[in-house]
């Protein structure tokens, strides 16, 4: 085998290796370098966000229009402050849009669902959503349910 053929084969090998790396990066992973920093950011305060993570999807009518970009805790009002980055093509969201935290499926991932209001003005960079609904925590729900039962039982015994 002469040098030229060897070099061609090695070149092919490197090209195919790099191509498969590229395929892994582009096709397998959730790579979106392009629209990472575009769009605008709004914030929303929640009483309870348990389960929500940075990068969780933000949807409207079930379509993903952005992601959670940051989660912090405000120690003065004891609320979670969630920063949401909306992609730039969704500019015309009314100012009184409301945000709720939902669960995908029974035990699935948490996401934020936005619902449009009727305001004529649109949301701008840095705006705050006023209407929010917290995450539904299964344990709280169950304990409320159990409490209700216990109360009913003690009522009938009296």
């Amino acid at each position, binding site marked *: 085998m002469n*040098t030229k053929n*060897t*070099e061609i*084969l*090695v070149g*092919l*090998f*490197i090209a*195919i*290796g*790099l191509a*498969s*790396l590229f*395929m*892994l*990066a582009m*096709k*397998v*992973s*959730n*790579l979106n370098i392009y629209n990472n920093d575009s769009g605008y950011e709004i914030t929303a305060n929640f009483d309870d966000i348990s389960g929500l993570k940075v990068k969780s999807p933000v949807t409207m009518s079930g379509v993903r229009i952005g992601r959670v970009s940051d989660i912090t805790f405000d120690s003065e009002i004891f609320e979670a402050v969630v920063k949401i980055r909306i992609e730039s093509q969704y500019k015309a969201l009314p100012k009184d849009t409301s945000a709720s935290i939902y669960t995908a499926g029974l035990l699935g991932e948490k996401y934020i669902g936005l619902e449009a209001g009727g305001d004529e003005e649109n949301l701008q960079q840095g705006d705050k959503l006023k209407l929010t609904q917290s995450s539904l925590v299964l344990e709280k729900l169950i304990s409320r349910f159990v409490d209700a039962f216990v109360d009913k039982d003690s009522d009938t015994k009296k």
Partner: protein
Amino acid sequence: MLNFIQQLGGSGLYFFQRLGRAHILLGHILMGIPAMLTRLPLVIQQMYSVGVLSFLIILVSGFFVGMVLGLQGYNTLVDFGAEETLGVMVSLALVRELGPVVSALLFAGRAGSALTAEIGLMKATEQLSAMEMMAIDPIRRVLTPRFLAGFISMPLLAALFSAVGILGGDFVGVGLLGVDEGAYWSQMQASVDLYDDILNGVIKSIVFGGVVTWIAVFEGYDAIPTSEGVSRATTRTVVHSSLAILGLDFILTAIMF
């Protein structure tokens, strides 16, 4: 009793001597790398025998591992009605663990043993001593290009393994068992992260590539220059590098994920 303790001490000392020699050799090899960058044809020659010749076995075994993952994953996931997540399972298993580990094991068996045997025979037939007589440093001339070639080839082979494996999972899951193709790919894209999963997999394979070729080159260079010694060194290469891969994989996984 005293005999036993003496034996223990002897083998302990021997072990540490070898470990020390291996590190000194690694230092020599690494020092030769800058000079090697001006003599790339040597590296390319070695990449042919280390990388290109391992290409087919990686391709075939990657495809079969992916197909088996697709089959087994489907059988388990379908019980929970979650067969749509097959893509996630196949891709995470391959990218995080099986891609780097299995391809490194195959690499150790296919290329590592060949390296050891080649260098060991060079030593046994006194080619290395002949080079020294001609004032050529055999470490820089023979070992460095081989080390570099293994170091470069391994991540490429591992990426190839993962990519082909995911296609194999797609072939079985989507093609034969009827998982929805859109769900296979979109669920995969939703949960595989470029940095957390793919980049860490690449780092793993780079580490494995370095360790496997280091062990192979050292065993060859340190072999007793007889036919028996070379055969023992070759066996040791495969055994030690397999153990090193599995052990390091645990440590790396514990650090990364």
